[in-house]
């Protein structure tokens, strides 16, 4: 039921009426307090382990608070979409999950410990276009970087490391490009190489920062498939995106962000027009038939 992305606008396939009916209370404005709208507060089935716990967490660069009062839980093998306009703090949250931006109030728990200590089991996929395309580095060298943590200081990759790297590259469908220079690949292919690097690290938590921005349909499909495969093995996924269709397609949970949390919970129940309007600012949202269209991303 998801529509194609039109002119860069995000399209959600949720039936507006149904979604609105299932809404847990009204759109949670920052003033309303976020805990009330946190569907994930309802404990998951027994035996599930939390991969990520946000407990009234605030994140700041120095004295400037960027995100406040985040609250929610993501379980092992689940994917959560971070949704919000540019400057909402999606990248900042991902960096906080890596322990690169400090939590100033509340608590963030990653894989049952602090973000700093969890790092060895967390893999991060940056936006491909933030990397220098002229850098003289080959595709296989980039993927091998995913093994660095396991290789350790002063050591060279072993045969097993090479196998893991090759298998990861195979999984994103770029095995035959191993010896090409990274910068000569298309944007979507570069994004897949960075995903392969993360897969090679065998993470328990995967963080993807806007992996679908400007990528071709094949790459989008490959990334979604790889996400599913990882989830099947119990890896949790955090993915920031502007694309509501992808959130519906691939994510169990969504976290609506714009400096504050505007909702956190199961995708269909949380992506209500009211909450989206609140997250993106009322005028930015148009309703057309059964679709929610975010006109400004």
């Amino acid at each position, binding site marked *: 039921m998801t529509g194609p992305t039109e002119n860069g606008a995000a399209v959600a396939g949720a039936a507006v009426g149904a979604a609105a009916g299932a809404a847990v209370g009204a759109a949670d404005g920052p003033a309303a307090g976020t805990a009330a709208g946190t569907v994930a507060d309802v404990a998951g089935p027994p035996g599930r382990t939390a991969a990520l716990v946000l407990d009234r967490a605030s994140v700041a660069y120095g004295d400037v608070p960027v995100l406040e009062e985040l609250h929610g839980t993501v379980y092992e093998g689940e994917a959560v979409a971070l949704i919000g306009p540019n400057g909402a703090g999606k990248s900042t949250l991902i960096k906080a999950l890596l322990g*690169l931006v400090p939590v100033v109030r509340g608590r963030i728990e990653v894989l049952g410990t602090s973000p700093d200590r969890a790092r060895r089991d967390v893999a991060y996929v940056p936006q491909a276009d933030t990397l220098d395309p002229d850098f003289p580095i080959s595709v296989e060298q980039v993927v091998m970087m995913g093994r660095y943590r396991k290789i350790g200081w002063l050591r060279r990759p072993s045969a097993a490391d090479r196998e893991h790297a090759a298998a990861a590259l195979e999984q994103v469908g770029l095995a035959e490009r191993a010896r090409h*220079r990274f910068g000569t690949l298309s944007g979507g292919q570069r994004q897949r190489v960075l995903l392969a690097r993360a897969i090679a690290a065998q993470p328990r938590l995967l963080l993807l920062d806007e992996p679908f921005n400007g990528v071709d349909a094949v790459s989008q499909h490959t990334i979604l498939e790889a996400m599913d495969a990882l989830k099947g093995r119990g890896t949790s996924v955090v993915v920031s995106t502007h694309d509501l269709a992808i959130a519906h397609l691939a994510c169990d949970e969504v976290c609506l962000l714009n400096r504050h949390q505007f909702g956190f919970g199961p995708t269909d129940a949380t992506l209500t027009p009211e909450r989206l309007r609140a997250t993106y600012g009322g005028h930015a949202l148009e309703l057309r038939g059964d679709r929610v269209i975010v006109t400004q991303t």
Partner: protein
Amino acid sequence: MNWFDSTVHRAMIEAATVGALGGVVGVLVVARRLPFFTMALTHATFPGIVIAALLGVDLYLGGGLFGLLVVLAVVALSRGRGQDFTAATGIALSGGFALGVVLVSAQDGFSKDLTAYTVGDILAVSTGDLAATGVVAVGVVLVLILLGKELLLAAFDPTGASALGLPTAVLDFVLLALIEVTVVAVVPALGAVLAVALLVGPAATARLLSDRLAMLFPLAAAIGVGCGVAGVWVSTLWNVAAGASIALLVGLAFGLAFLGSAARTRAGRAAARRLATATGS
């Protein structure tokens, strides 16, 4: 007579060593887009060398310590909020060079040595200088072998490196320090103004010839050695300045590689066009 007793022989060995060293370190300088920073370092090391000469202490030591201060200052300045690395570097460049010139000109009968500091005097190299350059070269290559993969990751994807828990600030400092000790080794031979030629030219030339990092290091080193030795030879043949001859040859090599790669690109496009016409697409 010992082979090393010949001024020209010593100069050739020194030129080959600094050529290889400059080529290898230059690969990192070019990949990280640090030629301007490197030029600032060569200029800012200059007052350190002058001060060392005035105090009668080792030139390498003086230049090295002063350059290290500059590295720390630039890193500190550019890490401050809203500070620009390029601006900090520019200040270090002009400030350092000006300080060197002032110090030299303040000394009576010292000004004739200004040329030696600015364009170098490779024919005056002693056996001790040769040993010092050799030690620096071995040390730099050793660090590159041991920390190569971490330096590579920090250079290519700093956020990804921090995400792995690597100390990126330390790795950045190691890289800048490698460049710095290379500058200190090259400056006495080529001078503060020309040293940057060996630290950027061979690597930039290699970059035109190959895309593969593993190839760039030997290629840049070979170009550096070739230009260094040929420069000394040309200078003895026609009795012209050695440092300037080396820098000119580096420029010539880059020019040829540039024309070569441009011609290859054009030939590639023409071949693609012929193929397109032949297949009727």
